[in-house]
Every structure is written in structure tokens, then in C-alpha cells.
């Protein structure tokens, strides 16, 4: 049984790796085959996968996860400024700082559960956001956002003599992170992050987290101290957020406080729920769908719509265009809100639940096939 599981997971990992690395090819026909969007999908996928380790497994709904994303970004940009333009230390530093920050916030917030926990995390995130805008300006550069400049120290780069002229770009041991190389860095990080999430889901640690979700009191009665487990889950998911944040800084070395605002925390909740909380692939799917909508749909304006519906009779075309323009372009958030409500009302398990029902409908055995599950929902 055990080896069977392992083999299945190995297959899942292999397929996952293949699917992620070939994203530029199979997403091109639906207009998503460019690195900017793909790396966003990968980054927010990591963010959502990490959030899911906390929310999906333990049921603790954090409304302040964007704070860790923001802290990761700041830490990565500071590494660029002070030490080296190499991405490896930046990512490591971003993850570690976000993890420490999560350790502190988690230690305090996890004393409460339910909505109190949500409010506590929200309060901490809003505090970080407000402070980043006001008093911490020397560290965060306030509204302008933290940027690279030519006068930065970059101790390691100068010691090794890799001084670039002009504004430097982040690099991976000499390879500049621009365009497609940026996507592949994010893709590799996503694959590693997914692998760790998979291991956590299958481990005794993951089982303990799921048990906490289903009945924490009973766990406590049996003499099981749940606090270290929830705290570990919180820190791990904070580190995922830090990884996502530092990757944001790697692909575009600029960190702003708006990344920590509570709407950003809400976004990752939306992604996770939309895809399916508690499932492995769901959060990534959710992130992909939302980022796809955001980038593709918001690009539609009335002129594009007129082209799309040009086949219709004139009066009808006008009506159809003015109706659909409510939902695309500037109005894509309306679509997002409605989609989200529909999912929560009718499909609380998210897109993954939809797949499961579909496969059940066609009477196939097994909950899902990995290849089919990795297809986007469009």
C-alpha cells in the first residue's frame, strides 16, 4: 500500500513538473503564453499553496497573510541592495525573514481560534501595512516603494568584481533574470514548493493538522498538544508567502507596501477557496484562474468587444457589448466577486470539488486523475 502511494505521488510529481514546465506551450492558445502572466501564476500559486497548508489543513482562516508576502519582498530587495544581485541569497533571506515574522505573529495569534484568530491576523497585517507606510519609511521607502539604486553597497558583488554598469538586474549566477528566465526560476520554485506541500500532506504531521481541523478539542483531550503543530503550519505557510514575495522581488526588484494590504490577503483566500481548500492542486488552480482573469479579461475594452461581436446585427451588438463590458475590462472584479459567490454557494469545495463530481458522474474510479486535474477550468 505504502509503496503504491509513493509511486502514485512520484507519477503526480512527474506529471506536475512536466505540466508546469510546458505551461508556455499549452497556455499559448488561450492567450496566456507570455512570461509576465505565467510567472505571476506561478508566484501566486506558491502563495496559495502555502496558505492552503494553514487554512486547508488546520482550518485556521488567516486574513493577514499578505504581510508575510510583503516582508519577503522587502527582505529580498534589501539583499539585492546590500549584498548581491544573485537571486539565491535574496530568496533564502526573504523566506527566513518571513518565517521569523510568522513565528512571532503566529505565536501570539494562535492563542485564539475561529473568527478571533482571523481578526488578530488581520490586525497584525494592517499594523504592518500602516507602519510600512508611515514610521518605517527609512526601511520601506514608504509610498514610493523600495527600489534598487546605483549607489547601493552590494558588498558581495563588489568583492567578487561582478559590478554592472547602470541599474543591475537580478541574476542567477551570471544568467540575467529577464522574461522567460524569470518564468523558469518561478516555475522551478513552484515545483519545489509543490513537492514540499505534497510531502506535508502525506506525512504524519499533515495528518495531525487534518485532525486539528476536524476536532481540536478531542485532540487536546487525548493529551495531544496541538499548539506546536498549528504554529509549525503557520510558520511554514508564512515561509511560502515569503518565498512568493521574494520571487515577486526577483522578477521585478521593487517592493511596495500595498502588497501587505488586507485586500491582498483577501485575494489569496479567494484563490484557495476558488480552487478548493484542503486539496493539493486546488489553490494553484485558483491562483491560475484569478490571475488569468485579471490579466486577460481586464485587457478587454469596448473596442475589442465590438470586434468580437461584430457578426451580430447592429442594434443587438450595441446591447450585447454594453452588457458584457460591465463584466470585463474595468469590471472584471465584478465577475470575480460573482464567480466567488457562486463557488461558495454551490460548490464549497471549489473547482476541485467540481472535478470530483464530474468524474463521479462519469463513473470513473478514483477521486481524480492527476493529468486531468492539472488542466485549467476554462
Amino acid at each position, binding site marked *: 500500500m505504502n509503496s503504491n502511494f509513493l509511486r502514485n505521488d512520484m507519477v503526480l510529481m512527474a506529471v506536475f513538473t512536466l505540466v508546469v514546465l510546458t505551461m508556455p506551450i499549452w497556455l499559448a492558445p488561450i492567450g496566456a503564453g507570455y512570461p509576465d502572466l505565467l510567472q505571476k501564476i506561478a508566484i501566486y500559486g506558491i502563495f496559495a499553496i502555502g496558505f492552503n497548508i494553514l487554512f486547508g489543513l488546520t*482550518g485556521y*482562516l488567516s486574513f493577514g497573510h499578505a504581510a508575510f508576502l510583503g516582508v519577503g519582498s522587502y527582505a529580498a530587495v534589501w539583499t539585492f541592495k546590500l549584498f548581491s544581485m544573485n537571486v539565491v541569497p535574496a530568496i533564502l533571506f526573504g523566506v527566513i525573514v518571513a518565517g521569523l515574522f510568522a513565528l512571532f505573529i503566529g505565536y*501570539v495569534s494562535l*492563542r*485564539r481560534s*475561529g*473568527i*478571533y484568530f*482571523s*481578526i*488578530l491576523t*488581520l*490586525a*497584525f497585517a*494592517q*499594523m504592518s501595512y*500602516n*507602519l510600512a*507606510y*508611515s*514610521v*518605517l519609511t527609512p526601511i520601506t521607502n514608504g509610498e514610493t516603494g523600495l527600489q534598487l539604486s546605483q549607489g547601493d553597497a552590494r558588498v558581495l558583488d563588489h568583492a567578487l568584481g561582478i559590478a554592472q554598469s547602470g541599474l543591475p538586474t537580478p541574476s542567477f549566477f551570471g544568467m540575467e533574470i529577464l522574461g522567460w528566465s524569470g518564468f523558469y526560476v518561478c516555475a522551478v520554485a513552484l515545483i519545489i514548493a509543490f513537492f514540499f506541500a505534497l510531502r506535508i500532506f502525506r506525512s504524519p504531521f499533515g495528518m495531525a493538522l487534518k485532525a486539528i481541523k476536524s476536532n481540536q478539542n478531542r485532540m487536546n483531550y487525548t493529551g495531544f498538544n496541538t499548539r506546536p503543530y498549528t504554529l509549525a503550519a503557520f510558520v511554514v505557510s508564512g515561509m511560502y508567502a515569503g518565498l512568493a514575495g521574494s520571487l515577486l522581488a526577483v522578477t521585478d526588484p521593487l517592493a511596495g507596501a500595498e502588497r501587505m494590504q*488586507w*485586500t491582498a490577503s*483577501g485575494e489569496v*483566500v479567494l484563490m484557495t*477557496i476558488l480552487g478548493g481548500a484542503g486539496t493539493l492542486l486546488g489553490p494553484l488552480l485558483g491562483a491560475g484562474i484569478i490571475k488569468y482573469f485579471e490579466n486577460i479579461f481586464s485587457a478587454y475594452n469596448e473596442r475589442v468587444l465590438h470586434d468580437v461581436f461584430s457578426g451580430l446585427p447592429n442594434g443587438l451588438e450595441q446591447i450585447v457589448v454594453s452588457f458584457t463590458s*460591465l463584466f470585463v475590462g*474595468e*469590471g472584471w*472584479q*465584478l465577475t*470575480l*466577486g*460573482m464567480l*466567488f*459567490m457562486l463557488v*461558495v*454557494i454551490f460548490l*464549497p469545495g471549489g473547482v476541485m470539488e467540481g472535478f470530483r463530481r464530474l468524474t463521479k458522474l462519469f463513473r470513473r474510479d478514483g477521486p481524480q486523475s492527476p493529468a486531468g486535474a492539472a488542466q485549467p477550468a476554462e
Partner: protein
Amino acid sequence: MDAFVLQLLNGLDKGGAYALIALGLTLVFGTLGVVNFAHGALFMLGAFCAVTMQKLLTLSVKVKDPGVTFFDAYKEIPYLEVWFGDTGKAVIDYAVPLSILLAIPVMLLIGLVMERGLIRFFYKRSHAEQILVTFGLAIVLQEIVKTAFGANPIPTGAPDAVAGSAAIGEWLGLGAAVVYPWWRLIYLAFSLAIIAGVFSFLQFTTYGMVVRAGMQDRETVGLLGINIQRRFTVVFGVAAVVAGLAGVMYTPILPPDYHMGMEFLVLSFVVVVVGGMGSLPGAVFAGFLLGVLQSFASMTQVKDILPGIDQIIIYLVAVVILLVRPRGLMGRRGVMES
């Protein structure tokens, strides 16, 4: 002393808004057991009732401007002014108070539709799902308002008669330098009146008594042959009206834009939690308390000692209260502790 009184008043009018929103949140939570993240959107909708009223009253006709003789110039004159002259002008001036008349039926209707159409399907679902679906609804509502009214704040003035400042310094014998905007005083009085109204509705009417009984033990009240569900639905409508009125009257203080609801929602939730989930007096008290604390924290003397405190004071208080008094200031045992 002068600065102290001023900051106290400053805090109280903001606290009034927090208290009104938090009161509605607590009512909904106490009766239906639903965590309503769309409550801030109701506040925003109320504010836009005032905007709509102002737009309706100032529907204009183009007439030729007789003052310009060199060419044909046109100016827009509201119909009301054309028809009723100075009376019409006065009516337009009082657009914001008048929109209360519009807001009450509109918000009641919105509340009832929302409860019957969406919220009632979520009584039995988890709090997380309630939060999520109402959060989605809030996004939808604010996007609709954005499409209808645009993304920019819309200035909506107070009537001219109360546009200036009140010389409260002279009343209290503090010196003439202490002045305070009339409208904020009115807002404070208004919010106190609404709070008193809600409490007396619950405390002194038979209807309110039944509602309170239902909050204590819903099943028994149901067994006594009372349709408690319908009363709770009405309470939801009342909560929507309270939030809406808070929004209507707030427009002269803060020009409404489509995302004002979200900002107030976050703060009001903190207020509810600080006051104690399910406690109405707690919500009101915490609303005023946090408003005043925020106002004091933004004094320069305080900021010199603790830089940045004005930005975080509310959240800091919330964290401390939640850790020291887990049920909030006046929370009841057994509420939201599962």
C-alpha cells in the same frame, strides 16, 4: 485642556460611525448567528443614497443665461429651482438630511432582499463560509456602485445653515479658539439618537422583547408558536437601515467613494471583537472608545513619544484585549467559541 476637549469630540463623532456599524453587525450576529462581511457595503450604499438624492434634486434644465449678452450662453438650473424658486433652493440645500427619507425604505428593502435571497441559506454553514460569501457580495456591491457612480469621491455638502463651526469653546468657557464643525456635532447627536432608538426598540417594545428572547433561546420561542425567523429577518433589515443611515449622515464628513465600506468594515469588526461578540452595549462602548483612542493617538504630543502610534492604535488595542480578555470587554460566555 482645549486640545483635549477637541480631540475627545473628534473621536466621538468617528466613534459614532464605528458604533452604528458595529451595532448592526452585532445585531445580525446575535440573532441570525451570521458573520456579515457585507455590512460595510451597506454603510457605503447608505452614503450613496445621499448621493442619489442629491443627484435627483439637482436634475437640471438648460436655460439661456440672460446675464451674458455677447453670445448665447446656457446655464443649468435645477428643476426644483425653476418650479419653486427659493423654496426649491432650500430643499436642494437640505439634500443630505432629506435623503434619510429615501434611505430608510431603500435600505430596509436591500436588507430584506439580502437576508431572504442569500443570508438565510448560510445559517447552518460554517462561519468561514459566511465570511467568504458575504465578502464576495461586498465586492459585487461595491463594483456595481463603481460602475454606476464612478471611482472618484463625490462631494456631498451639509446644509449651509450648519456648514460652519460651533463655538463650543464659549459654551464651555474654554476660550474662543475651540471651535468644532456643526455637522460633526449633529452626527454625534444623530448616532446617539439612533443607538437609543435601537436599544429602546429592543428593550421597551413587545416585538423587541420577543427578539431578545429569541436571541437567548430560539427554539423555545419557536415552540411557543412565534415565527421567530420572520422577526430575525426584520432585525436584519433594521441593521441594514442603521448602517445605511450611518452612511447617509457621514457623507458631509467624508465624500463617499465605492470602497469606503471596506475600510469601515475592517475597523468595525475590530470594534465588535473588542466589545465582545454578541454584546450590543459592548459594541457601542467599544466603538466610541476606539474612536476616541484613535483621535488621541493622532495628537502631536503623543506622536512625539510614540511615533506611528496613530496608525496602529486600534489594532494594537484589539490585540491586547483579545489576549487579555478573550471574550472582549463585554462578551458573553459561549458565543463564537466553537
